[in-house]
C-alpha cells in the first residue's frame, strides 16, 4: 500500500477537455508550463507543447470533442505522458498518417508524423466506430 501511495505522489495528472480551438491553446500553454515545472529545458518543453497542439487540433478538427491528459511521473523513471482521446470514427489508415505527408483536410500531413519525431515513444490505437487514443511519452533525462 505504501508503495502505491508513493507512486501516486510521484505521478500528477491534468485533464484538458478539447471542445474548441481555444481549448487547444489552453492545453498547450499549460503543457509548456507543466513540462518546465518538472525540469524539461525550454526547447524540450516547447516540443511537448507542440505535440499537445497537434493532437488537440486533430481532435477539434476531425471529431469535435475529446480530451487530453498530461501525466508527469517523477519516480525512478522521469517522463511526461500526453494522452489524446476521442470517440470519433477512427483513423482509417494509421500507418499512412504515421509516415507523414498524408492529410484529408488539406494540411501538410505533419501533425502526427511530426509529433512522433518530437517524443521518445508514440503509439496510436484507433478502432473504427469506437475512437482513437494517441499516447506520447517524453523522457526527462
Amino acid at each position, binding site marked *: 500500500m505504501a508503495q502505491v501511495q508513493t507512486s501516486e505522489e510521484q505521478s500528477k495528472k491534468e485533464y484538458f477537455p478539447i471542445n474548441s480551438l481555444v481549448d487547444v491553446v489552453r492545453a498547450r500553454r499549460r503543457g509548456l508550463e507543466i513540462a518546465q515545472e518538472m525540469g524539461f529545458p525550454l526547447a524540450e518543453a516547447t516540443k511537448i507543447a507542440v505535440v499537445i497542439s497537434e493532437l488537440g487540433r486533430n481532435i477539434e478538427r476531425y471529431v469535435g470533442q475529446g480530451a487530453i491528459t498530461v501525466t508527469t511521473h517523477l519516480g525512478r523513471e522521469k517522463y511526461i505522458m500526453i494522452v489524446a482521446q476521442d470517440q470519433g470514427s477512427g483513423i482509417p489508415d494509421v500507418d499512412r498518417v504515421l509516415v507523414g505527408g498524408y492529410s484529408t483536410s488539406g494540411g501538410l500531413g505533419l501533425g502526427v508524423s511530426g509529433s512522433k519525431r*518530437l517524443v521518445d515513444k508514440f503509439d496510436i490505437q484507433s478502432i473504427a466506430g469506437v475512437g482513437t487514443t494517441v499516447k506520447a511519452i517524453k523522457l526527462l533525462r
Partner: protein
Amino acid sequence: MRDFEPSELGETMETFTVVQKLEDLLLVSVPRDLTDSDVLRLRQRVLRDIRRYDSRWVLLDFSLVDICDSFFGRFIHSTAQMAKLMGADVIVAGLQDAVIETMVELGMTLPNIHAVLDLDDALALSREYKTREQVQAEDPLESPDSSRVEGESTDWDAFADSPLSDWTEV
C-alpha cells in the same frame, strides 16, 4: 505584451496594434496564443494591409511566439505565397531558438523566405534591396549581379544556408 484570453483575441485583434507600416515594410508583431482561426484572420489582415500601404516587404516578427506548430508553419508559408502574388516578400524575424529547434524536428522548413534575427536586420535587408533596385533603375542594361552596391558588407545570400531555407516534409 498584454495578456489576454485566447477566446477574446478573435474579437479584439483588430484593435490591437499588431500590424504597422514602416517605410515600405509591413511590420507584423505576431501575438502568442493564437488559435487556428486567429491565425487565418491575421493572414487576411496582413494581405489587406499590404494593399492598403502598398508594402514591398512583410516582416513577420515572431519574438513573442513560444509555441509554433505545423499550422503556424503553414501560415508563414501560405502568407509568403499570397504576399508574393501581391508583389511583397516576407521576412521572418525573431524566431526563438526553442521554436526553431522544434519546427525543424517537426519537419518544417521555409523556402523562399528571408529569415533574419531581428528588426534591425530586416530593415537593413529591405533598404539593401531598395538600393539595388535604384541602381538597376538608373542603369537598366546592367545585369543584376553587377548591380550589387559597392562596399556591401552583408551577404544576404548567406541566409540561404539557414535551416529555414527549404520547406520539406521529412
